[in-house]
């Protein structure tokens, strides 16, 4: 196995600039994760345009975004433990045993223990990613337009696992994303589509505008409505050092959960919420001999925390090797690469090893930084939870406006962002998820262009889509992916119901 790229990556990630960026990303990520109002996708959406207008090179931007992503998985546990409100989707299961521990006055111990579990998960996930990333690089030149098109079909098929309980809504969201992607200059015929003679729409809807609109603006309005329900923060942290006995007890659970989390992360479409649920239920089934799970068992806390961090790393595997996003967050990161005119896909590692290597190396470094940040400074992050919404939300809005305004220096894009945000809010109220829209938008453009280019090469003969071995394998995988996750999520849901009666 050739790990050349990884050593090169360390030399990228260990420069002073990228170390600083990684540190900033970890810090912001933990904060973003700790705040129940905003998750990693909001953090990334807000910082991406700023990184971009500052002229950061693509590898530094990817390091920043990856650090935020991982940081958020660390930070999510803080509010799960102290508030009983998960800081983000991956930390839902951490509250089940984390909050009871905090109520017993052992919040400090719980925070340290979960920090260690997160570290184990993150390191195992990063190692897995480092080994997996170069596997598909050899296929690179075999990918022509036809193969890319089938790859995109595969990517859409993986949506099956994100479908959840309301498949029609997911599919509508995805279609809306595809429709938004058609706005602007048609790269094949040079025709302007749906631009309404507005030159600012000539290049289509800016990715940043869409992401910030859908996630930040609509989020602000949702927060406004949910204001009434108040939380109580547990302020007594107790002793800050975990007991050696508890650590010993959790090691096995954490290791096992990390491996499971990584595997789930590699599967496109299944995210940290699924993996932490699987890890928790498995740990409960294997270890809960005395019925202590759910009442403050340290293993019940270690399992989901190790799993969700490993999943975050695993989700980079399909993203970096195939250009297929496994989650809303990785979809945004793919969009970020496209902002730099970098086409993600199998040839990414060969063409831009510094990006893949830098990102993977920064995950190792980031996990160490996060452990350092999260053990002694956890008090600081806990205090973030007390920032009132009237101070926090205006800050989110300022970041949104600056982010959009700075890429275009025009009011038009800010107003477009606001319009998209309002529609996004309406859709969220109707029970639509925003992630499929982003996925449709990111993938739709690539899919249409490659289909049309494939047909331009063949002169309209559809058989070109089934000619190469790569295409055939992808078709089979697509069919399998469309069927499998539906089955998996049904099973996971059944188990979840059995363990979490609330």
């Amino acid at each position, binding site marked *: 196995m050739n790990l050349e790229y990884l050593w090169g990556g360390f030399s990228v990630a260990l420069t002073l600039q990228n170390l600083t960026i990684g540190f900033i990303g970890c810090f912001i990520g933990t904060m973003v994760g700790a705040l129940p109002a905003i998750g990693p996708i909001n953090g990334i959406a807000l910082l991406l345009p700023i990184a971009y*207008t500052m*002229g950061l090179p693509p590898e530094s931007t990817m390091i920043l975004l990856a650090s935020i992503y991982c940081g958020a998985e660390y930070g999510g546990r803080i509010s799960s433990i102290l508030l009983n409100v998960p800081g983000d989707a991956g930390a839902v299961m951490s509250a089940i045993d984390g909050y009871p521990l905090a109520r017993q006055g052992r919040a400090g111990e719980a925070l340290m223990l979960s920090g260690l579990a997160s570290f184990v998960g993150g390191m195992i996930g990063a190692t897995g990613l480092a080994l997996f990333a170069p596997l598909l690089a050899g296929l690179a*030149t*075999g*990918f*022509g*337009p036809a193969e890319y098109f089938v790859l995109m079909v595969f990517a859409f098929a993986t949506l099956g696992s994100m479908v959840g309980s309301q498949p029609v809504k997911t599919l509508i969201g995805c279609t809306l994303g595809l429709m938004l992607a058609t706005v602007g*200059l*048609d*790269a*094949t*015929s*040079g025709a*302007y589509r749906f631009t309404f*003679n507005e*030159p*600012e729409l*000539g*290049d289509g809807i800016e990715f940043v505008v869409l992401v910030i609109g859908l996630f930040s603006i609509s989020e602000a309005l949702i927060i406004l409505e949910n204001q009434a329900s108040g939380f109580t923060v547990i302020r007594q942290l107790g002793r800050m050092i975990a007991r050696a006995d508890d650590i010993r007890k959790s090691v096995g659970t954490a290791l096992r959960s990390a491996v499971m989390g990584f595997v789930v992360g590699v599967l496109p479409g299944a995210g940290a919420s699924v993996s932490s649920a699987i890890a928790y239920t498995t740990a409960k089934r294997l270890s809960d001999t005395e019925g202590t799970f759910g009442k403050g068992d340290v293993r019940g806390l270690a399992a989901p925390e190790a799993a969700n961090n490993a999943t975050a790393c695993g989700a980079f595997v399909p993203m970096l090797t195939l250009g297929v996003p496994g989650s809303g967050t990785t979809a945004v990161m793919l969009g970020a690469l496209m*902002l*730099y*005119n970098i*086409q993600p896909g199998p*040839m990414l590692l060969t*063409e831009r090893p510094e990006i893949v290597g830098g990102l993977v190396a920064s995950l190792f470094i980031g996990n160490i930084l996060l452990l350092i940040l999260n053990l002694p400074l956890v008090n600081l992050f806990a205090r973030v939870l007390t920032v009132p919404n009237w101070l926090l939300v205006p800050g989110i809005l300022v970041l949104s406006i600056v982010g959009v305004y700075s*890429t*275009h*220096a*025009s009011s038009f894009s800010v107003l477009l962002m606001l319009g998209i945000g309002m529609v996004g809010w309406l859709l969220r109220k109707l029970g639509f998820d925003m992630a499929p829209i982003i996925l449709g938008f990111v993938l739709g453009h690539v899919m249409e*262009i490659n289909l049309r*280019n494939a047909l*331009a*090469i063949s*002169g309209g003969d559809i058989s070109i889509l089934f000619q190469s071995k790569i295409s055939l394998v992808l078709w089979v995988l697509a069919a399998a992916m469309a069927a499998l996750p539906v089955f998996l999520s049904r099973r996971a849901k059944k188990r979840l119901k059995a363990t979490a009666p609330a």
Partner: protein
Amino acid sequence: MMKLKTGALVVGMLFAALAGNAMAEPAKPECLAGAKPGGGFDLTCRLAANSLLEAKLISKPMAVTYMEGGVGAVAYNHVIGKRGSDGNLITAASSGSALLIAQGKFGQYDENAVRWLGALGADYGVLVVAADSPIKNLGELIEAYKANPSDFAIAGGGAVGSQDWMKGAILAKAAGQDPKSMRYVALEGGGAVLTALEGGHVKVGSGDAAEMVQHHTAGKVRILAVMSPERLPGELAEVPTAKEQGVDIEWPVWRGYYVGKDVSDADYNWWVDTLNKLAETPEFKKEREARGLYEFTLIGKDFDDQVKSDVARFKVLAKEAGM
């Protein structure tokens, strides 16, 4: 005739130089790139910004700002609408801008809505095939195309109507085919064209010399013809021009600048004068070479004429191609 022209030029330059002394340099020199950082417009701006400062023709660094949209259309409209009289600002343009103006894709404005300042370098169109292709020169390419037009996919880094497409269309016409029925594959930039050639997905690629030259020397692709008036210097000296091979086509991709319509003559002349001085400095020549551009210096009135004749030429070409 020739003498007269040079004479006029010298007098003009003297005049400009004299006036130049009286003129102040812009307080906040700025170059606007109508695209993302890293693209062609960015390169054009950096060429001016870096070499002007290195040659000490400006005392403060020139800021490079970005406003992407519509391959420069947003920047064009912005300069016309909001900064028409700003003498600090020059905006990057290329022959691609002239092509888009000719096709009416720059909104309601035509080529007379700004003052064209000058071009400082150019790249030239090339036709390439994969290194293992049996085709060795332009003549063979045309024959191969004629023999089997329905099996001949041409890839370029732009949509139908773009410069890369135009070059392909000229090839199609040379082979006696209708450009409309050409199997053109629109990819995202030269890198993608290279991958498509290497993977054997397309037979011919249309692109520019600067981005293809390294792959030519690395033995990945073969450049069949350069679309320049004379052979290009350096690594491409052995590649014949299209003209030498009997196809009368030149495709310079110039890189230049414009300023707003209402910029004062004093400011305009300061820029013209400064660019003229710049073009002679070794710092500039080094900088131009580093950015893979060939010599193409055309400043002031001459450049203005060039842009206008380009737009007229592109209009004819587009019509011929059936756009």
